[in-house]
């Protein structure tokens, strides 16, 4: 490790460096606060390594551009916030249906609509899950510090390639804009999953949607050796539209199962002092920093408080949350929205009545005091 690997950067910049580490060579986007620095740094960094950066006319074209570039064999990403993420939902659904690997960064800000451009929020958890219409599965990841932003971004690219799916990175304004230390790992320190390309030779029929035995779908760079069809319509193994009920059923099951059956492999989390915790905080993203602040303070005083920090939000790790919370008397979900992960946690645990919310929805980063007040309330001490 050299000193040059240590940087003092914003979370948005950590995400850019990680994307390049993972092999990104194409970015299309439209700048919007608080994600702008992702595009800004990409516009500077990508040309240095011979990659392509395009500033598009809007977010709809941005996601379409990365879908096209991915099909031709590139590793791709776009970044947006709030209303831009809303505009991307149609393209997101297309990428899910056509099984195009891509990474979409959503640095969450206050909403709905143009909302609070410069203020933090975590209100897009369910939009990430169900923003695109129709039955589908999605992967959404997050992180609470820049080192984790780096590794989770590399993970996002790896999962996108492994499962041929869009992966959403749900960061927030605090993580995006805050600066702290980042150590860039040496090449090879974090494994990088490359594009799985078909071994079918040129001139031989290639089936773009015929899974191998392990369920993965080898790709062929579009415009290269094979001619094939790509569509947002329900399609057969050749990629041509079909309304054959068994094809429809098979495709939908495949789209959901390829992620649902791999929840354990996709789940990323961190835990602090859970072994004997009576009260468990569950949090993610920047809120987890405030939660950890409280946990460290209370542990120093001998209180049996722990933290489960989720890094995989979707598919929601129901089994993990159920297991970790089995012995907890109180479970406090800490997030900056009106109870989005709270809802999933209540569905996961045996005693949903033990789950309460510590939140903030006024555009102010949730403080350790906000959480402390909720802890006092549930312990019957008043605020």
């Amino acid at each position, binding site marked *: 490790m050299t000193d040059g690997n240590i940087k*003092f950067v914003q979370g948005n910049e950590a995400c850019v460096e990680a994307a390049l580490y993972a092999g990104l060579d194409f970015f299309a986007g439209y700048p919007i606060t608080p994600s702008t620095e992702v595009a800004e740094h990409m516009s500077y960094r990508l040309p240095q390594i011979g990659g392509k950066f395009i500033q598009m006319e809007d977010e709809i074209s941005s996601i379409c551009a990365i879908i096209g570039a991915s099909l031709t064999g590139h590793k791709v990403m776009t970044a947006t916030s709030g209303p831009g993420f809303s505009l991307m939902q149609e393209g997101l659904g297309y990428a899910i249906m056509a099984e195009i690997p891509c990474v979409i960064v959503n640095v969450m800000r206050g909403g709905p609509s143009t909302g609070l451009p410069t203020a933090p929020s975590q209100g897009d958890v369910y939009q990430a899950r169900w923003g695109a219409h129709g039955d589908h599965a999605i992967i959404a990841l997050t992180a609470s510090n820049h080192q984790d932003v780096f590794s989770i971004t590399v993970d996002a690219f790896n999962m996108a390639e492994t499962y041929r799916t869009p992966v959403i990175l749900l960061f927030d304004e605090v993580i995006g804009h*805050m*600066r*702290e*230390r980042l150590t860039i790992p040496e090449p090879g320190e974090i494994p990088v999953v490359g594009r799985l390309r078909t071994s079918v030779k040129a001139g031989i029929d290639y089936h773009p949607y015929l899974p191998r035995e392990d369920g993965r779908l080898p790709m062929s760079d579009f415009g290269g050796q094979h001619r094939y069809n790509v569509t947002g319509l329900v399609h057969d193994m050749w990629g041509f539209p079909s309304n054959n009920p068994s094809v429809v059923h098979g495709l939908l099951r495949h789209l959901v199962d390829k992620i649902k059956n791999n929840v354990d492999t996709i789940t990323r989390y961190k835990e602090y002092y859970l072994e004997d915790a009576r009260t468990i905080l569950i949090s993610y993203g920047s809120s987890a*920093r405030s939660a*950890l602040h409280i946990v460290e303070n209370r542990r120093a005083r001998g209180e049996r408080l722990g933290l489960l920090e989720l890094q995989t939000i979707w598919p929601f790790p129901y089994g993990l949350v159920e297991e970790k919370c089995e012995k907890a008397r109180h479970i406090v979900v800490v997030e900056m929205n009106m109870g989005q992960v709270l809802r999933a946690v209540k569905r996961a645990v045996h005693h949903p009545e033990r789950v309460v919310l510590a939140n903030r929805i006024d555009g102010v980063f949730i403080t350790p*005091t906000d959480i402390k007040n909720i802890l006092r309330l549930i312990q019957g001490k008043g605020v």
Partner: protein
Amino acid sequence: MERCRLVFSGSGGQGVITAAIILAEAAVLYDNLIATQSQVYGPEARGGATRSDVIIADTEIHYPKVTQPNVLVCLTQEAYTKFYPIIRPGGTLIIDSRFVKTYTKVDAQQVQAPMYQTVMERIGKPIVFNICMLGVVIGLTQVVASDSILKVLEKRIPAGFLDMNRQALELGMELAAQVKV
């Protein structure tokens, strides 16, 4: 070391956020410390109240915002009026007498340094006002080494402007030394 919590406040365009970034970057890259820097800002690029929080420590920092600063810098009257109540009792409050009229009842060491006037008289360019302020801060607190700040300046600032910044940093440290005596 004791955890140092700083808040730099002023008006957009005065360079308070830049100064905060330089300080925290110096701590991390050259003094081997842990630091976070964050800011609260509105949609406007200039004007409006700006605030940047820096924490410098030798242990992990989880909550990155400052609720009670040991060191508070206020470069406008608006910022002073808004933020003086949050200073940690006995902390250091740094203001420029040209822009801020202080209240007497504040429980803090109030340092009135003629930073703007000194910069204009000795350098003549208001653009390095924020670096002079940084000189006062590190002169008073020794939270990072001045050499570390210089290394960051060398990295970030075009060669032609480096001398001016170096001079402003030294002026600030001189001002701090005068206050201490």
